């Protein structure tokens, strides 16, 4: 084979690769759109009246996940199944965002941390690499860290809205999360950088709890928990 023939063949391979990336980008754009819509919807919980209809907002958000499912389904068809990590960076960001949204919805509904398997199920993908398009563990953890900062914000806003018991529950939750993350030996990568931000969220929530307890508001919340809800 002559040198120029070899380069023609290589160029062909590179162009094919670019075409795949182009296709992936299109689907990812649509996914980002859906994710933005859900985020706007869920942002409503930070406003005063939003606290009353959290279940309704969660319900609406869950409806969006079916769109996400079909979009992810079409993403799967855009590239060979065994080359997930080759194109990973294209959907990494949006997948982390979706994990956050799923985790946020599940937290608002049940005040628990969504498991990796449960997120995968909500998104209609696999939890395990062997079985196809899956949720990478680092993406899952990144999404969970985004949840932590969102909850720090929620703690502040729920006080403003007069819900004094929520920050205490958030505090317990975040503390458990923090202990969980401390078990991990993170490398000096993006996940580690985001984990470094967790301590500020923990701090913020503890400050809120502190403010409530020196004013006796936390006891009031514990005593008359039903009043505010």
């Amino acid at each position, binding site marked *: 084979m002559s040198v120029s023939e070899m380069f023609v063949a290589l160029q062909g391979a*590179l162009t094919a690769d670019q075409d795949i990336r182009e296709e992936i980008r299109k689907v990812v754009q649509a996914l980002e759109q859906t994710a933005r819509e859900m985020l706007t919807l869920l942002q409503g919980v930070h406003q005063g009246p939003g606290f009353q209809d959290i279940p309704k907002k969660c319900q609406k958000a869950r409806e969006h996940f079916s769109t996400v499912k079909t979009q992810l389904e079409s993403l799967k068809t855009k590239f060979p199944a065994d*080359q997930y990590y080759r194109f990973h960076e294209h959907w990494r960001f949006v997948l982390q965002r979706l994990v956050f949204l799923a985790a946020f919805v599940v937290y608002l509904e049940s005040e628990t941390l969504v498991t990796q398997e449960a997120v995968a199920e909500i998104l209609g993908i696999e939890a395990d690499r062997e079985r196809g398009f899956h949720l990478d563990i680092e993406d899952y953890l990144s999404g969970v860290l985004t949840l932590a900062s969102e909850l720090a914000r929620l703690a502040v806003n729920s006080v403003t809205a007069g819900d004094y018991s929520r920050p205490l529950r958030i505090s317990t939750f975040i503390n458990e999360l923090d202990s969980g993350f401390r078990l*991990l030996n993170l490398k000096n990568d993006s996940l580690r950088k985001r984990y470094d931000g967790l301590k500020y969220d923990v701090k913020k929530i503890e400050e809120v709890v502190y403010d409530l307890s020196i004013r006796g508001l936390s006891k009031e919340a514990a005593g008359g928990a039903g009043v505010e809800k």
Partner: protein
Amino acid sequence: GSGGFRKRKHDNFPHGQRRDEKENVNPSSALMKSFKSFQQELDTRHDKYERLVKLSRDITIESKRTIFLLHRFISAPNGDDILYDSEVKLDAVRRRIKQVAQELVGEDMYQFHRAISPGLQEYVEAVSFQYFIKTRSLISIEDINKQLIFTTEDREESNMFFNPRDKLPPTLSLKVTPVDYLLGVADLTGELMRLCISSVGNGDIDTPFELSQFLRQIYDGFTFIGNTGPYEVSKKLYTLKQSLAKVENACYTLKVRGSEIPKHVLVDVFSTKTELIDHEECLS
């Protein structure tokens, strides 16, 4: 690192309060259990990555040594010995690549691609350099990949790197990606430039012309790819152009001076020129 962070954190809070919260966290809760399994999963992944980085470094070093060895080929009278030695060295490199392939059994190669890519590029450079010296042509990516198919007979020596519980497939293989190949070939041109200059120094008048033609073909190939490839490929194009210019200038000098100076003097003329070029290269 994280130790410092923990310490700072402790100072920020009264100890009593901190202990209360610690008690709230149940070490056997579902959340803690799943994080323990995450810890394991991440550690396994990082360990594998580190092993691959180490293998990649070994591959790089051995490939570089092979290239240095091959540079001696022109000046040495016993060329065949050197070619044989380089083959032995490359076999050693391939054994390392086999270990890489073993690490990657059942994994997605691209997940760990960044760990092994530098080594593979250097290997492509070495193997294509040897191939050029032997055949005066460019080795194809298919030929490179053919050499990276391994059988699993000698399994004992690699047991320490590989979990024996896992089932070994009958053959292992590793595929050099087109981009790795291209980057390796781009590096090869730098070696060819050095080969060209030193061969003139040794009084070989024909090799520079042959090389300039070969380099021009490769340069044409790279311009054909242009910016379809990733960023690194287009970055190498600039260096490639410089190498080509050096070789073309050398040929020019040979042609011009060659017609007016007797052959035995020419070598002296060029030797001084070579030093100049080498000096420039060091600076850049």
